[in-house]
């Protein structure tokens, strides 16, 4: 915490335009790739590289400024608000896919099976369709598949993520109590558990594609399953990378008990990812 009582207003910022350029090159490249252009993926990778350079540069700048005491309490509040509202936007993003799952399971699939307003649909279009979840639709899109059970790997993954939430909090207590050893150990455990989760998830996907016939193309069940777990897995990756950076900074001796916004933000993000997983475990795997 700085003794400085001034709100820090930076005067020039070059990273934002670099990041924007990286992102737009990446997306335009991806779009070209989807349209079958051979150079698309190269542009996509170039854009990604620029974007990663931007992230590295920008966060290095911010970490340096923070450590040199340029941010007072009020600046810290702005950052915390920014992170909180960013997580809120993420909640809304996941809400779309949870909502989609709810809508298809409770409304549109039963309608296809002839319930309520779907009577004519069933009789005229797919009279033989039996609307039972999990389904790949009346046209059996993607062929036969086996749905993903809850009590094998997914349950293990639940335990892994919950444990990582505990180790993250344990590390935070270490930071607050100035127990550097506890901070580092806790973060190492959290990051390791995070990547272990991702590895398990990758193995689960491999099983689904190679053994169970369950793919992104397996009708609405496959679509919702992979979209929800896939976006969540991506967020776990991002969270684990953020925590790795926080670990690196802790190892370098950054953060003080009264000033460690980056740690807090990473921890909030991690708990958010954790809670989303609990939702997935209940609504995607269990129910």
């Amino acid at each position, binding site marked *: 915490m700085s003794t400085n009582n001034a709100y820090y207003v930076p005067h020039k910022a070059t990273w934002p335009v670099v990041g924007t350029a990286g992102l737009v090159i990446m997306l335009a490249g991806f779009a070209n790739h989807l349209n079958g252009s051979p150079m698309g993926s190269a542009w996509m990778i170039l854009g990604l590289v620029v974007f990663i350079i931007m992230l590295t540069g920008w966060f290095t700048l911010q970490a340096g400024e923070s450590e040199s005491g340029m941010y*007072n309490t*009020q600046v810290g509040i*702005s950052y915390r608000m920014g992170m909180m509202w960013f997580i809120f936007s993420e909640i809304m993003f996941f809400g779309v896919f949870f909502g989609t799952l709810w809508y298809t399971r409770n409304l549109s699939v039963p309608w296809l099976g002839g319930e309520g307003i779907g009577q004519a649909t069933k009789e005229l279009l797919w009279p033989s369709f039996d609307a039972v979840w999990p389904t790949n639709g009346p046209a059996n899109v993607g062929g036969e598949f086996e749905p993903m059970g809850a009590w094998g790997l997914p349950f293990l993954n639940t335990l892994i993520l919950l444990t990582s939430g505990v180790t993250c909090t344990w590390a935070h207590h270490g930071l607050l109590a100035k127990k550097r050893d506890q901070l580092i150990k806790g973060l190492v455990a959290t990051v390791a558990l995070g990547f272990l989760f991702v590895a398990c998830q990758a193995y689960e996907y491999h099983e689904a594609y190679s053994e169970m016939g369950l793919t992104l193309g397996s009708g609405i069940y496959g679509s919702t399953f992979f979209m929800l777990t896939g976006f969540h897995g991506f967020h776990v990756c991002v969270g684990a990378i953020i925590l790795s950076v926080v670990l690196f900074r802790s190892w370098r001796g950054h953060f003080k008990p009264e000033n460690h916004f980056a740690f807090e933000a990473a921890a909030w993000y991690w708990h958010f990812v954790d809670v989303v997983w609990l939702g997935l475990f209940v609504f995607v795997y269990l129910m």
Partner: protein
Amino acid sequence: MSAVVAEHEHDEHHDHGPQKGLLRWVITTNHKDIGTLYLVFSLAMFFIGGAMAMIIRAELFEPGMQFVDPQFFNSMTTMHALVMVFGAVMPAFVGLANWMIPMMIGAPDMALPRMNNMSFWMLVAGVLLLASTLFMEGGAPASGWTLYPPLVLQTGAALPFAIFSVHLLGISSIMGAINIIATIFNMRAPAMTLMKMPLFVWTWLITAFLLIAIMPVFAGAVTMLLTDRFFDTSFFDAAGGGDPVLYQHIFWFFGHPEVYVMILPTFGVASTIIPVFARKPLFGYSSMVYATASIAFLSFIVWAHHMFTVGMPVAGELYFMYATMLIAIPTGVKVFNWTATMWKGSMTFETPMLFSIAFVVLFTIGGFTGLMMSIAPSDFQYHDTYFIVAHFHYTLVPASVFILMAAGYYWLPKWTGNMYNERIGKLHFWLSAVSVNILFFPQHFLGLAGMPRRIPDYAVQFADWNMISSIGGFIFGISQLLFLYIVIDTIKGGTGEKATDEVWEDAHKHGLEWTLPSPPPYHTFTTPPATVPTEHI
């Protein structure tokens, strides 16, 4: 709360002013610079989107096919909407927010200046990606701005570009909104309590919340379009157990709050301007705040009134009908308050006030037609006709756009230090106010008579009103060049008369921005003001 702004500069000490040269505009973190960037960009987009509208009205001038082929016509209706919503109206209000909110609440700058810069450039990137689709194989998206599947999935090479453009615009809006919320909650002068904030600040606070809540929803919806087209998913395909109507539900869960994103700051600017020219406090300040919050809340629970004819269960139709009607109550509170503010005021009619009064009257017309369409059985007649086109253009053009014009006239003297030409301003107002009604009022009749929207040709019984509407459109379009002229002229010196600090009589009693010099220095309120004006309350 802090006392002074730090001037941290590693390489150049005592650099308080802007960077020299064009690079200033690329790397700036100054809220006034970024506000200017947003406003200039949105004005350019207003004319590009307007040119598309001119193409539409030219094609509809007479029955039969005149100038463009139907595919391109549909691209024009789609792109006109997307450019106007995401390129013109929303960025214009973000520009006003950037310029005015720190000055109105006594803050040194926006709370997160670097992110502020990024949100502007993300917007430019998104719009460029969208504009690039005009030159692609298969043409720009032609499905309407709602991008409904399965129609939108037939778009050619443009589809992934349009989808990623939505992602970029969404990121831009979310970053801008987070910045505005953090600024309002964290950067106010100590004396500026929440219930003393100007209504423009209040409405933007609530709008920013809406944006953070809805832009991810739109991003999710278009992501599912992308995977349905390229990655074999079945979200919107009944054969795989999905449902195209699901897209409509998700889209309008975004889309209804989205239209309030464009109207709530409009309300805020109107509530800021009207008291100054009526020389009275705003009538019912706190009820205005609560009404804004109520409208924002209701906007999340009424979305399916956009889809009455899609085949929902009757219970859904009834619920969405009654919930929609509720919106008339807080909106009525607002219209009443504006009218009561003017009641027995010693009014003068400078250009900003003229536009604001026209807004109150014409927005009310747009509101009433909205009420007509909220009645589900009636909507079966109006749905997808020119009646809905007339309705939402009344709530957007003589409401949002008029208020943006009013804001331009109101604050241009503050921004530039020069007075604009009042005679040309009034000419611009009267031409706009008359022609906008010639343009949109006949569309009510066309819609009630059954003319569908989004068609390049029509039956001959619709010929007369279409021709009148097009004539109104051309006059309205040309009249806006006057605004462009005034903006450029005022920046260059205007009438030659220098604007005073308060510009409008006793304006300093209504808002902190009028206590600053005209134009304000590059950094303002490096120390927060000790007292704040309360006349607007």
